[in-house]
């Protein structure tokens, strides 16, 4: 079976230790987490993990089963890239003088639909939101000028199909 990119979405309680429990499932299988984001979700007091991995469908099925089995996990799903809408964010910190000395930088900012979020005496910061390859391309374009700092967030994604987490929570409540 061929490796491909999968986005795993996990709806869970917001408890101490759950991140450790979930990351341990990847560790046990010697599978690297490509990116990880944890945030609140559309439901009050329910957290959402978005985890990106490059593996086979057999393994992602196995992993999602193990994640969902954890007591404090409400539901876990996996999707391929074309089943989700996804984005990442990146920040580039660059020396301020380059903004004036290198005209090309302003073009790169415009062409990449990115924004300058702050300008200080010594540096300025560009924010870029987009797909991984778009951020990678912008990184390549800026690299020759010197990047003081670079950071990219984990992927965040929403699925194209409906996520009936609220209905599921109600169903669990009815169970004896």
């Amino acid at each position, binding site marked *: 079976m061929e490796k491909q990119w999968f986005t795993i979405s996990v709806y869970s309680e917001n408890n101490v230790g759950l991140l450790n429990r979930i990351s341990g499932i990847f*560790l046990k299988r010697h599978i690297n987490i490509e990116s990880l984001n944890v945030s609140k979700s559309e439901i009050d007091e329910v957290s959402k993990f978005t985890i990106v991995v490059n593996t086979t469908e057999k393994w992602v099925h196995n992993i999602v*089963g*193990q994640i969902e089995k954890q*007591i404090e996990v409400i539901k876990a799903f996996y999707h391929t890239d074309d089943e989700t809408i996804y984005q990442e964010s990146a920040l580039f910190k660059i020396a301020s003088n380059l903004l004036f000395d290198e005209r090309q930088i302003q073009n790169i900012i415009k062409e990449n639909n990115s924004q300058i979020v702050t300008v200080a005496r010594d540096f300025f910061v560009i924010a870029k939101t987009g797909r991984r390859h778009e951020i990678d391309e912008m990184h390549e374009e800026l690299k020759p000028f010197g990047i003081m700092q670079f950071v990219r967030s984990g992927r965040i994604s929403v699925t194209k199909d409906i996520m009936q987490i609220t209905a599921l929570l109600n169903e669990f*409540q009815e169970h*004896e």
Partner: protein
Amino acid sequence: MAQETPATIKISGAEAIIHCLLAEGVDLLYGYPGGAIMPVYDELYKFQDQLTHVLTRHEQGATHSAQGYARATGRVGVAMATSGPGATNLVTGLADAQIDSTPMVCITGQVPRHLLGSDAFQETDIIGISTPVTKWNHQITKAAEIPEVMAKAFYIAKSGRPGPVLVDITKNAQFEEFEFSYTPCKRVRSYNPTPKPDMKAIEAAAELINNAKKPYIVWGQGIILGKAEEQLKALVEKAGIPAAWTILGASALATDHPLNVGMVGMHGNYGPNILTNECDVLVAIGMRFDDRVTGSLDTYAKQAKVIHFEIDPAEVNKNVKADIAVLGDSKHTLELLLPLIDENKHEAWHQVFKEKYQIEFDAVIEKDIHPTKEGLTMGEVIEEINLASKNNAVIVTDVGQHQMIACRYAKFSESKSNITSGGLGTMGFALPAAIGAKMGMMEREVVAIIGDGGYQMTIQELGVIFQHQVPVKIVVLNNDHLGMVRQWQELFFDRRYASTVMVNPDFVKIAEGYHIEAKRVSERKDLKTAVETMMASDKPYFLEVKVEKEDNVFPMIPSGASVSDIRLK
């Protein structure tokens, strides 16, 4: 059943823990005291008329005793330890209980809240350490959290697919006073322990079974955990299906039942393994297709339609693709299935199993249990125990050759009679587990069968047997080797016996040092009487049997080979 205590009273966290245990029906627990758990031990002293605490000689022994108790009774086993090394010594037992789905609650003391993360004396991150080997774990830092967390711990340990839970309680929470009231846990909103059965899947399963020409059942511990022994028997008899068991499923159906065809797996029976690849419908019930059961997955039951009855959705399609998956509690799903099943006999198919059995009997079994060579075999010892116990002992085994031989030849007439470390393969399991099994079922005869290697891993628990006069029977099958590893060295490593030869102490003297009656047998003529004397004793009893040093366990599916390639020699 868990009791509700509505009236609120102001008590310490330590006392609250005792009340939680009592409310959950606990009357016996195993453990070892230490600094960070001392307030709870102080309360145990006050409540000793209601709650028996057994001081094991090592915390690992406490977990295995709690496991033995749980496996024999079906109730939650409880173990307690202090922080730091006390807590880390629980890890092997937790891992064993996790992989073998044993309901257990472990309670550990922890340094006070304000010292967490300071590398205080005997501080260890037991939550972090135990996470991969627990069904759930939780750290309590305030006394007020105790009732809810303890209730949740017991509920999670025993519901759905059971497993171990660890509750870590900081010392300040044990001292703190609060208004106590207890409500048993009935649900956790993010946790669905038992999936609802899908009637369509059950109907499809029935249709496959009814149309099968060569159906074959392999059941596992899910039958015992689901209390579905009667339903399994009814299915086997109504549909006339030959049925085999995994090591943890042993004893769910009596050994002498005509449709019980034996054990699957690496050292299982010949027919049950080889015919896995000849059946047309494989009905797997409450088992998880462990690699020791399936051998190479590429050649496992490829010709068959697979029906998988399973409570844990994560097990479905994990190792073997199921054509039909029936999720749910085994008792419930089998009850729904039974009325849809046509009566059948499958006599010709059953005859094939009988023929394979005869091949195995001639090549292996006869020589194992009725040997003519000089040295004693492990098989003949098990056979003597069968005879002396009238096939009705609880057999607790350790890990290795003796375990495989005991599981192959021990005869069972009641469920929950085979207690062994199946998934983790924990040497040192049997002696403490036998203590727990016996204390949970004083009315039954409990025989621990242990190799000379594993025995020395937890031999200190003889102290518990002596102090509490636990009338277990201990049989050490001594071949002066780590026999199973030696067997692999003989077969796959050109007889290079690296670190598998054991120079053993005088086991009889050691037992006698603990004032346990002890005997050694090394000749066939003395075996029967020795076993009978042991079984007739109403006290703890130790029997060492000197067996042939270099015997091998057969049949055998070499690691990674197909079930079809099972070797008889």
